[in-house]
């Protein structure tokens, strides 16, 4: 595959608003047909980055290159990128048909071709019967589908979506997620999707770009992001993590009165060490297991403080060395152990389940 064919390349993009740094040092290569998610907390710069790509914001430094051409100075009208907005931004004074046809009219397409294209698009998003209706007569989910149709009608080179589902109910969000994913797969259009909902990002993306404070913190597949979070922030932001602050001692980690065996602690050079472990990776000790299954240093007995039934799993809160932690026990397993509040629970912390960090992120209040 040629390196320049239809690739969208961001080279060292940064954006300053006076002294405020919104985006810093962003380097990214997006392959054609890829589904990329920008994921991060509010204020991380993901929307700003999206707006720079669309051309509504001008970057302070850096280049945007599409298909080998630098498009920094190309006005938004000529970039041929489709955009789906958080607020749908449908034209209230036009019918669904007119909304979808708008971009085609701007390109002076003959009417009969516009008719054809619009009906195809509406079939695609399942709104063929609503052609003559106005946006105010549609529900939120339907409006978003019209917005989607309107954006893809012009056959954009890249489709950009700015938190398109955040204004919708949870159930509709999940349904529309599927619609968007299927659409992208069938049309093969490059998609850049901005969201703060990590579940959405993991479900939709081929690759996820985690951003914080204007910088890219990690790029990887959803699996990679989840299983191998590069920073403690990502370990906390994506999924849930328990955090342990400890010191290196004799090849192990000293945590209060405990000395835990942890793999990969030599990856960090500092003495102070931060560990993250996901609640689902803490195992419940099975008394019937053969000896040698569990490393004794990592077996700890705890007292259940709070038991939260979450449906498929039960989340048990316990205190370890004055730190509050969670362990997730599958509901079927929980049934068998009959654990009550203040009841005792033996847990095993597998050495390789820890993520090791030399820095801890600042907690967002």
């Amino acid at each position, binding site marked *: 595959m040629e390196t320049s064919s239809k690739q969208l390349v961001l080279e060292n993009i940064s954006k300053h608003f006076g002294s405020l740094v919104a985006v810093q040092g962003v380097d990214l290569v997006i392959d054609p047909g890829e589904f990329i998610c920008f994921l991060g907390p509010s204020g991380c710069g993901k929307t700003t980055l999206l707006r720079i790509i*669309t051309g*509504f914001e001008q970057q302070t430094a850096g280049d945007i290159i599409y298909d080998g051409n630098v498009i920094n100075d190309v*006005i*938004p*009208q*000529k970039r041929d*990128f*489709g*955009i789906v*907005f*958080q*607020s*749908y*931004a*449908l*034209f*209230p*004074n*036009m019918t669904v048909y007119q909304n979808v046809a*708008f*971009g*085609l009219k*701007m*390109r*002076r*397409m003959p009417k009969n*071709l516009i008719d*054809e294209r619009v009906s*195809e698009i509406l*079939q*695609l998003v399942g709104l063929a019967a609503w052609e003559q*209706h*106005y946006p*105010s*007569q*549609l*529900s939120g*989910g*339907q409006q978003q589908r019209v*917005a989607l149709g*309107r*954006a893809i009608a*012009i*056959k954009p080179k890249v489709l950009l979506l700015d938190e398109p589902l955040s204004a919708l109910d949870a159930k*509709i969000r999940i*349904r529309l997620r599927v619609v968007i994913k299927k659409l992208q797969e*069938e*049309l*093969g*259009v490059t998609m850049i999707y901005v969201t703060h909902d990590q579940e959405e990002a993991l479900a939709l993306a081929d690759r996820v770009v985690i951003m914080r404070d204007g910088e890219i913190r990690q790029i990887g597949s959803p699996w990679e992001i989840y299983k191998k979070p590069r920073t403690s922030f990502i370990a906390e932001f994506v999924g849930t993590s328990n955090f342990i602050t400890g010191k290196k001692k004799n090849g192990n980690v000293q945590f209060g009165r405990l000395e835990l065996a942890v793999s990969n602690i030599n990856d960090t050079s500092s003495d102070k060490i931060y560990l993250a472990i996901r609640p689902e990776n803490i195992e419940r000790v099975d008394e019937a297991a053969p000896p040698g299954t569990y490393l004794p240093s990592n077996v700890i007995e705890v007292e259940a403080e709070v038991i939260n039934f979450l449906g498929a799993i039960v989340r048990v809160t316990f205190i370890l060395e004055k730190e509050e932690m969670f362990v997730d026990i599958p509901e079927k397993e929980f049934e068998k152990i009959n654990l009550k509040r203040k009841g005792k629970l033996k847990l095993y912390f597998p050495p390789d389940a820890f993520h090791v960090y030399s820095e801890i992120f600042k907690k967002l209040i």
Partner: protein
Amino acid sequence: MYTRRYLKNLFNMNTSSPADGITTPYQVSATRMEIDKFIVPTVTIFIGLMLCFFMLLPLSAILKLSFFEGGQFGLANFTLANFQKYFTTSYTLNALWHSLYVSVATTIIVTVIVFFFAYAMTRTTMAGKTFFRNVIMMPLIAPSIVQALALIYLFGRNGLITAHLLKIDWNIYGATGIIVSEVLYCLPHAFVILFTTLSAVDIRLDEAAESLGATPFKVFTRITLPSAKYGIFSAAALTFNLTITDFGNPTVIGANYNVLATEIYAQVTNLYRFDLGATISIILLVPSLMAFMLNYYISRKTFSMISGAAKPVIPPSRPLKKISYTIYCSLITFAIFLVFATVIIGSFVKIWPYDWSLTLEHYSFPSIGGYSAIWTSVWVSLIVGIAGAFLTLVAGYIMETRRPFFKQGIYLLSVMPAAIPGLVMGLGYILAFNKPYYIFYGTPWIIVINIVICNFTLGILASISNLRNIDPSIEEASISLGGDTLRTFFKIIFPLSRVAFFQNFVYFFMRSMTTISAVIFLVSATVHLAAIEIIMLDNDGWTASANAMCTCIIVIVLVMLGILQIADKKTGKRSQGMIPET
């Protein structure tokens, strides 16, 4: 269902499959985009030039005439002789004290009256609030002369009440007449401000204070009053400004009690002393500008104590409170009704207050050549309405949704017309444009321009406020789909601003029909306006005809308001529809 391959083709812009038969891709026109770059700057410059030429130029003409000998600009010619003359002539100097006295008195009275009226609307559960709210706005539909006409018919030398019912010698001409008529004139303007202020102040604060043990009196003085502080000052500043710049009422009912406004007119029209007229205009500008800046400063500082989105329910008022406020509001609305009733009835009565037989003879207007003045007013107002609404919408759009250069400059220029008294502008126009190459001078067009500029501020503020309600993403959506400025404006922004556009149209129309001060200098032998004819008729003794002309104006404005109501209902129907399941 579509197969994957078909979809891939669908998505391939340059397919030349037999199905579509097109080979050329469709692109957004490059030339169109090139031209688009120039549209916003061009319009911005146009608006800026328009404001400079039709506002700053007249103003500078006045400054030149008053500060410079013979109106010739030059350091050697700078003189304060005009001002000296003004301040040493006791008769003309009195106009200044008279103006201040009358304006301050009116301000105090109006602020107090309207405060309690607005309090009744927002803090009590009395009945008929909609009715009262509508009536207090009535003075807006008539020229600021209807009050004076009514008061003369009731309290003048042959007044129904003074001469015939009470049989006393006293009449209302002079300062008293001016004050009463201005009070009645300023009520709606002050009400709008105070009603908004008191509505915005959360009533739950009063409740919170009560729950902490405050007596109603304490709640009023410690909570309600202070929180409305800015609104009160703003209403006071506005009232002061309206009164001190008003010409219509003082000229009819002031008699020998001269004020700055009537003095300017007298100097220019009767004595042809343009330089003195200009000088007095500057003197009038000072208090007027101060009041305007105070208002401007206050509106920047206004903080609203609103919490939560839902409007809290007003707790039921005690019967005594309800009754007393109802009586209070009724008295005020009665006064307003009385004014209108007097003028309207007075136009149909043969000889007020002697011969009560009804007649239409006053409506033939023989002395002024029939209805020509009214027709002129109507078509001038229609043009003012359309031009004003359109220009302020375009200017507002340029200001709000784009970032043009000179944005602050244009904004400043747009706000200035509100600071300049109409009379001063009118005088400036005849000083600046009284040259043969200004072909619009002496025609109705100079009037059109003048009225549009004088009322530009409120128009553009209303436009901006309306445009802010439009989701900014909509404009970006249009751009991302290839829309340029013109198409975005005409296909999307303008249709969405329809209601605001029409409201602005009616506002400009109404102002044009009822304005006196701005145009008093611009009417001529060939161009007559209805509102000015009222004054002329009254001057010539045709008082009943003056009332008739006034009534005609009122009817025309009401008809236009009625059309607005109907148009409002029709466009409201569009956006209704059921929300179905997903």
